[in-house]
């Protein structure tokens, strides 16, 4: 039997500036930090992965990587089980799952390349070559990463909403985006209501999702979302917090309700199903702990009438392309993919991953179908480590 023994894992923590400040209710940022993973097999093939770039996750990745040396990448379930059989065994919570997801992605990529398949084919079949993607709209257009006080001062001037509308139209003109996600600072319902009305008027046919990251209380969120219902938004993403609050809100509105915060692990699925809490599980590959876990989530969600969709933050081309492969392979995925890649000032891949006519093409090569550009990687490297026996 073919075995794909892991001989080394290389980790590179990178920091990549964003082309503009991005504001939401949880952050105002102007850079993204990620950990790029290279998993080397005995057969000479290297798989690429990526995960969060916090120092905690980077350290955890080194620890997990040591456990993976000598193991068989073909058996990703066994790799995952080596770190614990249940969520109780995961002593590192969300960081543990994100670390696992990054290594798991590299193992899937290495396996697909070794078997002469694209990643989509290994996941379940290459069904689509072009995937619609979503452009994030910051809560406000800001000159730099400002303080919360400066942000709220800006939001107090309601006429500033026009800057976001202009930005959305630029995105539409430049790359043909048909789908947008408005991040909300969850500071002013009046700002959000005015801005979403203006966006709808400016782009009558666009799909627009609205994401306050659960920072509105349930009563405020429900009141706001009821007012927004006539706009026919694509969905309300985490309009408020905890499963119970979001379930009550869903019952009060006609617009679909999505979450990437309250249904993020296996054990959240059944309570969400029983409570009929959401319409869309906007699953993040890194929160769910990897490709197999995401695929299972999609099957379960679809079986009980929820729609799975792919969440993303400001990821490099590696994770962006991984999400394209998932969307291509899984017929359950109908919504456009989140993507923040076009806001990164540079990438780590040789092949540019461009958005044209609001969509990205699935790369045609083996595995992810992309190659790491070592020069680009070096330019954004914070630190690196190679784990080898």
């Amino acid at each position, binding site marked *: 039997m073919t075995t794909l023994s892991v001989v080394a894992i290389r980790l590179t923590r990178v920091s990549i500036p964003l082309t503009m400040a991005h504001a939401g209710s949880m952050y105002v940022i102007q850079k993204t930090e990620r950990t790029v993973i290279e998993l080397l097999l005995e057969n000479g093939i290297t798989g690429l992965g990526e995960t969060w770039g916090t120092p905690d996750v980077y350290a955890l990745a080194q620890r997990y990587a040591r456990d993976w040396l000598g193991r068989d990448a073909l058996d990703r379930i*066994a790799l995952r089980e080596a770190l614990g059989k249940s969520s109780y065994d995961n002593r590192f919570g969300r960081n543990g799952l994100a670390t696992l997801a990054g290594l798991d992605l590299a193992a899937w990529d290495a396996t697909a390349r070794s078997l002469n398949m694209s990643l989509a084919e290994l996941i379940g079949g290459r069904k689509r070559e072009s995937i619609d993607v979503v452009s994030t709209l910051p809560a406000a257009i800001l000159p730099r990463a400002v303080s919360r006080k400066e942000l709220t001062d800006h939001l107090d001037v309601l006429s500033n909403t026009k800057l976001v509308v202009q930005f959305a139209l630029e995105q539409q003109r430049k790359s043909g985006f048909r789908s947008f996600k408005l991040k909300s600072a969850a500071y002013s319902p009046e700002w959000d209501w005015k801005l979403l009305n203006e966006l709808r008027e400016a782009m009558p046919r666009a799909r627009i999702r609205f994401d306050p990251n659960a920072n509105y209380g349930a009563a405020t969120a429900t009141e706001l979302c009821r007012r927004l219902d006539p706009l026919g938004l694509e969905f309300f993403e985490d309009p408020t917090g905890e499963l119970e609050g979001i379930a009550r809100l869903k019952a009060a509105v006609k617009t679909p309700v999505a979450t990437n915060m309250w249904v993020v692990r296996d054990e959240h699925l059944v309570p969400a199903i029983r409570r009929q809490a959401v319409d869309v599980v906007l699953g993040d590959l890194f929160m769910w702990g990897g490709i197999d876990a995401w695929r299972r989530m999609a*099957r379960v969600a679809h079986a009980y009438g929820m729609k799975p969709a792919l969440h993303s933050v400001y990821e490099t081309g590696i994770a962006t392309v991984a999400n394209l492969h998932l969307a291509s392979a899984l017929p359950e995925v109908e919504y456009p993919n989140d993507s923040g890649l076009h806001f990164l000032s540079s990438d780590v891949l040789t092949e540019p991953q461009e958005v044209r006519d609001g969509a990205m093409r699935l790369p045609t090569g083996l595995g992810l179908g992309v190659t790491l550009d070592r020069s680009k990687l070096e330019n954004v490297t914070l630190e690196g480590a190679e784990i080898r026996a």
Partner: protein
Amino acid sequence: MAAPVSIAHTHVHSVRIASGAEALVARVLAAGGTAGFGFTLNLDAGVARDMAAWDALGRSKGVPLFGLLGGSYRKAIKAFKDELPAISPDWTALRKDILDGRHELLRIDPFAWGSVEMVQTIAAVAQAFDLSIALLAPNAHPWEIQYCAALAATLKGEDTRIIVRSGSAFSSIPVSENPGMGIDWSVEPSFSKIQWQS
């Protein structure tokens, strides 16, 4: 959904196996020329074709089924003699019954449910609801048991098992590491006599 393999030809033959029963045997010829085989004793050619497609893909890549599906939870599968009925292949009813808490162990006849993908979907739901799966080899034929073992390797849960209607009360079935489904076709002499079209 069948396996992600480019299929050049698919053929199905009816053969008489040693027990006197009729089996349908499917051959899928992948675009690269690798042949894969599948079968059924319940005369539903769909499951045989699906199995043959996965077998062709596994053989062409040199990996067992679990290598294509993401990995394995175990190297051997417990097999029990069990007379309890399998769950009727009605997905709408099963989803509701699971939600209503009517099951603890899902007794699934994979030949009745039609495809590897369907078993994987049931397994995903079972895992979410913390249920286990017992795969029924309805005629306790070695081919059936080997197919069930290949599938059961990929199913989470300590209670995962194969159930048979006859034979010994308990046994342990090794998961084949041979490419494809790992089925030993030679146990039925009639298999080698099939005249496949070129």
